């Protein structure tokens, strides 16, 4: 971007400045620390100048929004055209309680839905399974059958609003329930819009909610790609997620690298199935974390777009520009929230959300202040949603596209993020791609290492966490927490029993048998799952078939 002579001049002036003005100040007022680091423990220089981005080529590296390589955004007008989707991740107790929460959030201006399922559901167990003991409704809503799904979206216009579902191993089953519930209301699947997380690879790496071994799991994922491409053109069949990788302790660069490497693995799997890359790649979506370090996060999103576009075009030969788009949802960092002085979390979340917006997110969840203590209360979640609305309508940051482009610091950071990602890609390739790397525990170990370093930095006071290792208060701050209906579990068990009693059990047995045979073969499983779900086969029954055919995965224990 700069001419050689100009750079030489700047270099000369910089040296002079360092020797004179800077040195004088440092002699009198030394800096507060010897080194300054990001949230990811990466060093940050005192000052960035054109010299730090001397190699940057505007057209090649940044370009214009809506054009390759999309560093500045996937849409030409970004948030001037359409604000991001305000999508609050929510779910607890029974389908009825969660349905009421969705209506509350919509009433207060959220623009997309996002379902949190409880632990048994995430593991493919029905509420009355012995494995589910003590877990009902604790981390999300229980959805054991189509009947629960019908209640969850009762009176919600699923033909108009998009729904994201955070579920992975059983994603195909839950998706089928959503499709079948809409179908019963006369809404054809073609019009449905939304996302299933369906990202099994990051489960092995970080979130750990896996059921089946990698191979059959990848088959299920590709089945959804294929089915979605043919029948639900508006559905994102995967949300390739860095969020949980980051929450497990990864640095920003590790989050970026492992997420994209997972993405490459899915693209390869789709192509190996014989799908045309442009048939399914436009429906691949992403999900990133927004942690504390403002500029580092923004650089991460910008680098992500550039890398994805390049790899999709150059390496995988995608021709449809939509296949080059990295569209992503963002959630502020749950792991940054403190149980101490919980109101401070409102401020943390606001800063993180601002980074996501400036990084060009398509969708955003903001955490509530009480989430280090419990699931969010109504009043806490409203403040979190209002935070997005204040950014959207009051801060002014949405008025222009990618306002931080051209910042010497942000561009240098974006480049560094990209370089670090490529170093990881090389390493991962040498281990046989992400599947091989996971088998060897490589990403798991890298993340555990970073998590430990971060904790050491806090314990030794190298890193300040307000209210945790500094600025403590004697006063014990309490805030009202969410109360979950204690009778809910009983009602859910009764509903499940009624479903099993009233459905056509012969039909269920037939459909489960057809599913089993299909699972043993190579057919796309989605139509079989849909048929089973329509007959009110439960999640546990369907996943039970898969457990028998596919087996269960046991992870290597890595410390």
């Amino acid at each position: 971007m700069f001419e050689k002579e100009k750079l030489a001049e700047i270099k000369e002036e910089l040296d002079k400045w360092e020797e004179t003005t800077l040195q004088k100040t440092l002699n009198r007022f030394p800096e507060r620390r010897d080194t300054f680091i990001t949230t990811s423990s990466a060093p940050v220089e005192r000052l960035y100048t054109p010299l730090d981005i001397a190699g940057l080529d505007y057209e090649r590296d940044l370009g214009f929004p809506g054009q390759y390589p999309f560093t500045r955004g996937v849409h030409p007008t970004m948030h001037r055209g359409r604000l991001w989707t305000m999508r609050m991740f929510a779910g607890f107790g029974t389908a009825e309680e969660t349905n009421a929460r969705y209506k509350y959030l919509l009433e207060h201006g959220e623009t997309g839905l996002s379902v949190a399922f409880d632990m048994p559901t995430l593991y493919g167990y029905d509420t009355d399974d012995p494995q589910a003991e003590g877990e009902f409704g604790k981390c999300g809503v229980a959805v054991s059958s189509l009947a629960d799904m019908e209640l969850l979206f009762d009176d919600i216009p699923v033909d108009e609003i998009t729904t994201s579902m955070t579920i992975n191993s059983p994603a195909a089953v839950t998706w089928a329930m959503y499709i079948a519930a809409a179908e019963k209301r006369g809404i054809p699947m073609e019009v449905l819009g939304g996302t299933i997380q369906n990202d099994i690879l990051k489960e092995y790496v970080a979130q750990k909610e896996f059921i089946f071994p990698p191979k059959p799991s990848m088959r299920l994922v590709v089945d959804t790609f294929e089915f979605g491409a043919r029948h639900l053109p508006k559905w994102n069949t995967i949300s390739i997620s860095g969020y949980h990788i980051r929450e497990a302790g990864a640095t920003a660069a590790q989050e970026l690298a492992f997420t994209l490497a997972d993405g490459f693995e899915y693209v390869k799997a789709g192509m190996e199935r014989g799908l045309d890359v442009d048939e399914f790649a436009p429906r691949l979506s992403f999900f990133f974390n927004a942690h504390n370090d403002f500029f580092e996060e923004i650089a991460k999103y910008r680098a992500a777009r550039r890398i994805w576009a390049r790899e999709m075009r150059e390496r995988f030969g995608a021709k449809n520009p939509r296949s080059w788009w990295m569209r992503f949802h963002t959630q502020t960092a749950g792991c940054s929230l403190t149980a101490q002085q919980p109101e401070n979390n409102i401020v943390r979340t606001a800063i993180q959300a601002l980074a996501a917006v400036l990084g060009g997110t398509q969708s955003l969840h903001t955490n509530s202040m009480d989430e280090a203590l419990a699931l969010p209360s109504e009043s806490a979640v409203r403040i979190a949603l209002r935070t997005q609305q204040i950014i959207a309508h009051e801060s002014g940051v949405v008025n222009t596209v990618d306002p931080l482009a051209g910042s010497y610091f942000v561009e240098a950071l974006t480049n560094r993020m990209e370089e670090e990602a490529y170093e990881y890609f090389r390493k991962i390739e040498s281990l046989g791609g992400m599947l091989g790397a996971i088998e060897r525990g490589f990403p798991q170990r890298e993340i555990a290492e970073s998590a430990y370093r971060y904790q050491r930095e806090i314990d030794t006071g190298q890193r300040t966490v307000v209210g945790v290792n500094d600025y403590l208060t004697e006063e014990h701050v309490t805030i009202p927490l969410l109360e979950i209906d204690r009778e809910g579990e009983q009602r859910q068990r009764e509903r499940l029993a009624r479903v099993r009693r009233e459905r056509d059990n012969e039909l269920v047995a037939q459909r489960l048998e057809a599913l089993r045979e299909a699972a043993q073969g190579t057919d796309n499983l989605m139509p079989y799952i849909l048929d089973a779900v329509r007959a009110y086969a439960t999640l546990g029954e369907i996943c039970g078939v898969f457990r028998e055919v596919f087996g269960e995965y046991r992870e290597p224990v890595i410390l």
Partner: protein
Amino acid sequence: MPEKKIRVLIAKPGLDGHDRGAKVVARALRDAGMEVIYTGLRQTPEMIVEAALQEDVDVVGLSILSGAHTTLFPRIANLLKDNGLDDVLVLAGGIIPDEDVPALNELGVRGIFGPGTSTEKIVKFIEEEIGKR
């Protein structure tokens, strides 16, 4: 004779997959000179108590963030007693609301360490408690 190393079992009961805290604590205890065994994920109360017996540990650290502690901890505590492991120091970490603390103390969970606890504090607590014996 060198002092016997404190043996600790770090366990993840229930379905909860959040293992960041468990792993960080395990590393910190190991760095503090303790012998640490980590069970891995999705352990039933029976599996945890079996591991505590087999490994002859002085301390069992339970990590859970899903909210299922109200069901699972009493079962683990009772199983420990049934197996004659009354003298094992039981600790818990994760998301555990204040209101649940008295009941857990009653069950014999001696230390409860929520988010924001420094690893030094946990090390010190274990050393002091075991030192008393």
